[in-house]
């Protein structure tokens, strides 16, 4: 074999490998695995929080329309950071947001917090004993689940939502969800 060719061979082999790596990188979007993803929401029925005289919030309320389920608490600082963005979402009316008021020791704390900062939620359930939160596999607040019209969990986001995450992460998920009844 030609000597120069022999010395160039390692470079060529490497460049081919690098090409494969480049393709491999584009093929591997890693998302947080979520046990519930693609499964129906767990059954739950929560009482309303104080001051809201509606029926509370139950898993059966999630049928019929794509919605977000947001885990929050008046004790959670990051939820306060997230809150103005949820208010903006409500104003835009893109998708109904339901809240699970998680682990409140004082039954007045949640309602007071919503009175003070505004209430972005269509339905709110009170979950002081973490019944729903455990069923959802919540690891911390805030956490947001995207649930489609069939009541199936399509996505879970851990941490406060903001405009960037909404545009890059949540909206693509919403676009994938077909409206119920459509083929």
């Amino acid at each position, binding site marked *: 074999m030609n*000597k*120069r060719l022999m*010395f*160039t061979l*390692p*470079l060529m082999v*490497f*460049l081919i*490998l*690098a090409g*494969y*790596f*480049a*393709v*491999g*990188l*584009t*093929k*591997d*979007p*890693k998302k947080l695995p979520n046990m519930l993803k693609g499964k129906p929401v767990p059954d739950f029925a929560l009482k309303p929080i104080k001051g809201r005289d509606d029926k509370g919030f139950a898993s059966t309320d999630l049928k019929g329309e794509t919605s977000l389920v947001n885990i929050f608490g008046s004790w959670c*600082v*990051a939820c306060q*950071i997230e809150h103005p963005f949820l208010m903006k979402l409500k104003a835009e009316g893109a998708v109904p947001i339901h809240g699970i008021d998680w682990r409140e020791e004082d039954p007045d704390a949640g309602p007071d917090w919503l009175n003070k900062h505004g209430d972005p939620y269509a339905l709110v359930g009170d979950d002081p004993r973490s019944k729903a939160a455990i069923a959802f596999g919540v690891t911390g607040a805030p956490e947001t689940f995207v649930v489609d019209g069939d009541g199936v969990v399509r996505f879970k986001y851990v941490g406060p939502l903001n405009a960037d995450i909404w545009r890059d992460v949540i909206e693509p998920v919403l676009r994938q969800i077909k409206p119920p009844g459509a083929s």
Partner: protein
Amino acid sequence: MTAEIGHFALVLALFVAVAQASLPLIGAHRGDPGWMALAKPTAILQFALVAVAFACLTHVFVTSDFSVVNVVSNSHTDKPLLYKISGVWGNHEGSLLLWVLILAIFGAAVAVFGANLPPALKARVLSIQAMIAVGFYLFMLLTSNPFDRIFPPPLNGRGLNPLLQDPGLAIHPPMLYLGYVGFSMAFSFAIAALIEGRVDAAWARWVRPWTLAAWCFLTGGIALGSWWAYYELGWGGWWFWDPVENASFMPWLAGTALLHSSTVVEKRDTLKGWTILLAIITFSLSLLGTFLVRSGVLTSVHAFATDPTRGVFILALLVIVIGGSLALFAWRGPKLVSTGLFQPVSREGGLLFNNLVMATACAAVLLGTLYPLLLDAPGGGKVSVGPPFFNTVLIPLMIPMIAAMAVGPFLSWKRSDLMPALRRLRIALVLTIVAAIVTYAVHGDEPVLGVVALAMAVWLGTGVLTELAERIRLFRSPLSESFRRLGRLPRASWGMTIGHLGLAITIAGMAGAGAWKVESIQVMKPGDKVTVGGYEYRFTGAKAGKGPNYKFVGGQFTVSRHGREITKLTSEKRVYNVSQQPTTEAGIHTTWRGDLYAVIGDAEGSGGAFVTRLYFNPLVVWIWAGTLIMVFAGALSLTDRRHRVGAPHRKSSAVSLPGAQEA
């Protein structure tokens, strides 16, 4: 505040590294001693700055500063101090910081101890080291800053992956990195040699201690990782051909080849291009190891970070470092002239054979590791290549190599004869055949590979001892003469003898544990007895308890043989408070014949019954005993006189060369 100091030190280190990467290199090109001399202070300063950054990160971990993202994600106030410290490198960002710290340590070591190096070579080597460092600083500062703050700070952290909370694993990554990064020295010397256009005996002797040290650390690191997998994962296995394990095994194979080929360069002034290529490949594989683990291109049980942006950055880094050095090799390599000629049957020929086998084995492991990726890239779907592939490819490669390993040291340089060498090995051959027959008589021909592997171990071991006996003229001259010769053997040749002996012991362990492992899985109630590999395991029951940051169920076993109690084994199944992730602690009793190994699984029903896994792993401890001996042999060789007295002077001083014009 500490985090900011660390961050700032890291930025400063980047600037110092940029200076170190450029000024001495330019100085060496122009023949300007003043600029070349900058290599030493910049290398030392760079080391000092990274050391400060590392100390800062350690401080925020030890004090549990939860305003730092890295601490939140990887630490917890309940964690024992040792694991708070090991948490520093038990994550993506921190392990990179450890990586550059070690890189800087090696650089500073060359700066301080490399007084006998020609200034131009030293300047170039340190500049190339700094170039690698610049790449890693940029990677950290742009994509993986270990000092990022979080607002609002949470009350507590998420804890370290419980599997990693183990003393063995606390020191495993630093050992492995000392090996990986240590090969950067061989790489830098190789690139400097390509730039200068000369590779000679002096060069080979300068590189050797660094390569040897890196090899020792890597060998130790791999052994430690395998030992950890053995006692912590609770499957009774010691090697899983997992991509992360392969990532450390590939540089080991290439590095071992490099160690052998560089002796040919040193002694016989030939195989130069090949040795340079091996140095580049060994370090490239070390980088690839980092890439495979970190980028998410291949996933595995112990991958720390998966993030495409980081992946793209690492890929760019790899293309620049590896592609750049291979391009330089393609351009300058043909100009390296080898003078030593040799016949196929000769010491050189034997070492070249070793190199070819090592390189082929390395390529096979690379192929097996990347195969899922190669198939997936054009859309072939996801597959995984399991142990069968590696075993089928590697075992047939290793058998002829070990057969040759016993013969090689009998061959003389340049030209030799096979028959006299084989005649001197006739006792070893007889012993090997006896060993094979005995093994066959005890175990039958199931599996035949076990018999062959054990025989190969005996062949190598007896061959090495025969060579030692020949060398000191044992039984041919008076015993006092033999002892005198024994005392005068250079430490490098002791290194070879002991190192090869260590490998023989490791192979025996692999043969035993691979071929005759006995395994039994069943449900046991307290009082139940099961016999495994001739040992009777009695389950005496389980009880629950609490550790510092976990709860556990501990199962007790009493093991006896021929009615005589040998030991009590305790296996724990732990669940860590923070992550709720379960881990197993196997109960192990080690003997030279084999390990008694018991693992308790999940409770079965409410009657105190548990799923248990019981193993007898024959000779398994020999695997690690052998590797330990290999590490010792490497260290012994490192103290050889020729490394201490310094290298011979070159015929002409490289300082006077304006750049690389001589080539």
